[in-house]
């Protein structure tokens, strides 16, 4: 059983830790770094609740070891809003579209949407909707999530969001 020193950036701040090899990134983020916005639903890659971004890409944090994130830049849902509490555009749109009910799947959904629609990114509605297949919402509140996705795609690409592209 090996232990490893890791250093990584989480939501803009440096963190270091001493982790057992078998510690998942999700557990490290929640238990060691305190980012409990990382929600664990299934812990085997099915539900998408634990989605975060690692070096800008949406991944499931339950399917990665903490030691594998050594040197990486991680963002969790806590890292999206501005210091003064101003919501990230994805959070704002999801609030307006009533895209959450119980809120359990929400941090994961927010992170996928934020990774696809960040500054300077172009993403068609089909691409965004395709990516949403990686999230399960047990409240079945999919229509609000889809409306948010459509609006975010539109904001990124205008009318051309309707055209083409695959997941």
């Amino acid at each position, binding site marked *: *059983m*090996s232990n*490893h020193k890791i250093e990584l950036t989480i939501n803009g701040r440096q963190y270091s830790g001493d982790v*057992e*090899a*078998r*510690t*998942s990134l999700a*557990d490290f983020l929640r238990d060691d770094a305190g980012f409990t916005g990382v929600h664990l639903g299934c*812990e*085997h*890659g099915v539900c*998408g609740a634990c*989605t975060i971004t690692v070096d800008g*890409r*949406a*991944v*499931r944090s*339950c*399917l*990665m*070891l903490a*030691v*594998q994130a050594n040197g990486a830049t991680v963002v969790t849902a806590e890292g999206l809003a501005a210091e003064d509490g101003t919501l990230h555009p994805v959070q704002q749109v999801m609030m307006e579209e009533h895209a959450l009910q119980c809120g359990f799947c929400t941090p994961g959904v927010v992170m*996928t949407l934020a990774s696809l629609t960040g500054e300077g990114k172009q993403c068609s509605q089909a691409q965004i909707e*395709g*990516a949403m*297949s*990686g999230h399960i919402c047990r409240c079945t509140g999919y229509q609000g999530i889809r409306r948010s996705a459509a609006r975010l795609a539109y904001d990124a690409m205008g009318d051309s969001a309707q055209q083409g592209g*695959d*997941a």
Partner: protein
Amino acid sequence: MKPAPFDYYAPATISEACQLLSEASGGATVIAGGQTLMPLLNLRMSQPFILVDINNTAEMKGISAVDGGIRIGPATRQYEVLESELLVERLPLLVEAVRHVGHHQTRNRGTVGGSIALGEPAAELPACAVALGATIDIASVRGTRQVPASEFYLGPFMTVLEPDELVTGITFPAWPAGHLPLFSELAQRPGDFALVGVVGALALEAGKISRAGIAWMAMGPTPLKATAAEQLLLGKSLAEIDPQAVAEAAVAETAPFDDKRTSAEYRRTVGARLLARALRELTAQGEAA
């Protein structure tokens, strides 16, 4: 913390990785993207003593044109296939297939080699490797060997890999420019494994099919090459193809199974339809051209 304890190594080179696998005498497991292995570790269905992570092994990454084809490093992430202009142009089947592998979030981490080495009979990439005639490069401290994809798979999740061996590359032979990819699968939801599916490529020379590679997903214990169907296609123009006859010949060679997802009978019926339909679409393209 769910997995059983293990030691973790992230070797920088293939030879170090092979050394670790050899010393572990069967107790080590290789982790690439981890999108299948992590659930197995979390469920303790896999309990290795040693985990060999190939994500820091530079030689294991990248998509490159090589003599006679294209080599993909096993630790290349699936999303990189989607973004590879080389593959879009030269092996469009792989790009189409990867769109059906898991979800956006798992493709960001999952690797080509992971899917190839796992040997799930319903998976897209092993079937593509078989259809396109890929070769699997394998290394161990004992040396290296190349195995054709069609001989790599022995059964569900079983391959010719010995415990001390590592997949170090997947080499796809060149296919002529403008060849036609064929991809058709039925899954319950996007991202699920195929209930049944068929992949392939057809190359034309002077209007006749000069090369055909077709393989089934979930129609047997391994990805299955549809040799009889390929024979029926060779030498024909697209207009001369009899999709129904080809599909029936192809299904006759399969050995589908009943499982919790669906029945063998369903796989035969739907498999034939999928292949016939895909061929009809290609014929229609041929007429339009």
